[in-house]
């Protein structure tokens, strides 16, 4: 009898009308961040969470589940109830991981649904003292006659993929990646003159560029970076590397469309507000303002492109 009642309650809770957009959210919402609180993603979640908490009048909790190139936290959210009360805030690792981890416990296309892109910032290719030239053209010329070491924040990280993308786009004949545990140790060997380039977000390379230890060669994509006004964008330099670093929110697949839309719209309201714009600017970031559908297409395209690049450049693990 007791079991039956329990089963009934569970069945009721699982019914879609238990989670309708007009009364969402009526209890605590959890944003899972697949990185440690020390990373650059955690503060973004905390900012958005704090603003949503004011808007929604319920607690928005930030839970950190780091590990295995962000796949532990992602796998966790994939198994959560599809009611919008547990969502994931992650980075391009979402689209690069499937190309390196062959045995992911989730399917990035079918187990989670993209909800909103909550901001983007540019990737910057920066060079250390081992590179003689200060310009992109000079560097490409130099790279024709010698081996280039590209230091990355880890095999299969977005920085690694983007480094390979850049090497292909710039036509570097002999560029090989050297992997580190995270972006800061990777930059030390660049400023020490042992490795040649590092590709990271604007904020990640800013410290060393401002100190004159690294020189920015090119800002990838077609949006100039305010912090590096004199550095050309990839579009200006005529190389095909249209890629950005972004933060995005995902929900377990099966989350009702109206709830996905509500979370998307409310997050956009937060980010378009003055505080939101100010926050993004302080992270050298901006908003693309993609609709739910546009973001979903973006993710699909990204997954395919990274997969192609991984096959082409022989990026693999396992």
């Amino acid at each position, binding site marked *: 009898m007791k079991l039956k009642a329990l089963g009934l309650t569970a069945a009721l809770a699982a019914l879609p009308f238990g989670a309708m957009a007009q009364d969402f959210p009526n209890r605590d919402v959890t944003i899972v961040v697949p990185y*440690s609180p020390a990373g650059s993603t955690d503060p973004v979640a905390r900012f958005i969470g704090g603003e949503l908490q004011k808007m929604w009048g319920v607690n928005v909790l930030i839970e950190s*589940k780091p590990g295995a190139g962000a796949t532990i936290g992602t*796998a966790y959210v994939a198994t959560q109830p599809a009611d919008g009360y547990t969502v994931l805030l992650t980075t391009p690792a979402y689209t690069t991981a499937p190309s390196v981890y062959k045995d992911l416990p989730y399917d990035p296309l079918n187990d989670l649904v993209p909800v909103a892109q909550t901001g983007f910032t540019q990737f910057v290719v920066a060079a250390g003292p081992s590179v003689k030239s200060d310009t992109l053209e000079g560097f490409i010329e130099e790279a024709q006659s010698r081996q280039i070491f590209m230091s990355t924040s880890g095999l299969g990280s977005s920085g690694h993929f983007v480094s390979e993308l850049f090497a292909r786009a710039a036509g570097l004949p002999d560029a090989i990646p050297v992997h580190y*545990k995270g972006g800061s140790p990777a930059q030390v060997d660049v400023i020490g003159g042992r490795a040649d380039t590092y590709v990271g977000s604007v904020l990640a390379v*800013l410290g060393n560029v*401002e*100190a004159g230890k690294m020189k920015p060669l090119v800002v990838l994509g077609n949006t100039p970076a305010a912090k590096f006004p004199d550095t050309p964008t990839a579009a200006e330099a005529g190389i095909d590397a249209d890629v950005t670093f972004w933060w995005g929110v995902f929900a377990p697949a099966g989350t009702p469309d109206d709830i996905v839309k509500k979370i998307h719209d409310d997050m956009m309201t937060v980010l378009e507000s003055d505080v939101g714009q100010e926050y993004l600017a302080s992270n050298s970031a901006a908003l693309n303002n993609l609709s739910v559908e546009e973001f979903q297409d973006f993710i699909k395209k990204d997954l395919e492109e990274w997969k192609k690049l991984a096959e082409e450049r022989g990026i693999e*693990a396992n």
Partner: protein
Amino acid sequence: MGLYDNIILGFSTAISPVNLLYCFIGVFFGTLLGALPGIGSLAAVSILLPLTFSLDPTTALVMLAGVYYGAEYGGSTSSILLNLPGTPSNAITCLDGYPMAQQGRAGVALFTTTIASFFGGSVGIIALYTISPLLADAAIAMGPADYFSLMVAGLVAAAAVTQEEPLKGLAMVVFGLALGTVGTDIDSGVARFHWDMLELRDGISFIALAMGLFGVSEVILSLSTMDQRNVKQRVTLRGMLPTRDEWRRSVKPALRGAGIGGVFGALPGTGPTIGTFIGYTLEQRLHKDPSIFGKGAIEGIVSPETANNAAVQTAFIPTLTLGVPGSATMAIMLGALMMNGVAPGPNLINSNPEIFWGLAASFWIGNVFLLILNIPLIGIWVRLLQIPYHLLYPAILILICVGTYTIRSNVFDIFLVLTFGMIGFVLRKLRFQLAPVLIGFILGPMIEENFKRAMIFGRGDFTYLVKQPVSGVFLALTALLIGWAIYKTVRRRPRRSEA
């Protein structure tokens, strides 16, 4: 700006009422949490991190740093009283601290570690003030080959922590090295020994390993022996003071410990634990009667504690000047800075001098707080021993599980810590030393990682390792060390057979 101006700027920032208050809050909770077995500095900083979100960057960092070195300070308490290290870097303090407590001299041990910690911390801070920029340059100049050779030297130097049975010690180093291979290889991306568990892709958690081997195993061990080891301790101020002879014997170990800890702390990636091991080994090697170690020798607690706290302070040098965190705890500090829009790196000292020098000054104020806070607390800590074990140990087990879980909110780590508890228990029953496991575990992956990188930069040429000047020197030192060890063994052997 000269050193004098920096000190003035630093202290004027640090003694603002808000910063003083948060410094005190930080060290108070840090020492409290650190003294609880199982809650190390990483867990303590993780737990208290959310409290700092509303603070300005300097104050936030002053408080977090206070928690960090407070926890390292407090960590020795449970090492001495319960044979349970509060943090992994206090593990070696158990070796002589616990025997002292068993001899009824817990007060002396606690007092000595407090003074040693204060001394070590102060030396570390002076180093932070005077040679930060210099050390930052040195760290940039050091490449993978240099790190490889340094770590090899460290491994050789530390492999000798065991006193009686070198073979068993070696076995444990190898066990540690083996455990260190678990996880994704940085260079090839191959996941090794992960048994299809996503959680093992990043390798075994150091905290889970250390807390399991040293903490959980101690709990099981005491359950299985069920003896009441409680020694009634009366602690008066006079009873806490070391004898004149002990004061005298502590001076040199303190100086050497501070030096070793300071150097290892400043190297990115090593963390304070290595320094404590090497400090201890060195004292044992230099002492005319090495057999007193492990039985309550004052040198055996002074050296690792000064090394630990010196390392804790100098660990801020690479974190702040290079933006390279030396340990997971430092990574959180770095995160706290970036969260506030401050970019750590070579430019930090110039762009945010108040943060750098203010922090350095607050460290010293915090250390004074710790001194004042800890000496009166010793009497209270010692009373912990009077809590019946059937109440104390379940509580400790819960704390260890909570502390391990907090670090990355993963239940897997709780199973891991308990598993290592069992393994540690069996190994201790078989009379294996556990400290060398940690050494192998920390150094093994660093040696491998840097070796592979050095080979990439050297284009596969092994002589690259010797041709790099710093690396060459370390390798030569290693060779000397091995030669010396062989010489010592050969010379000592006949004497032993006579006995």
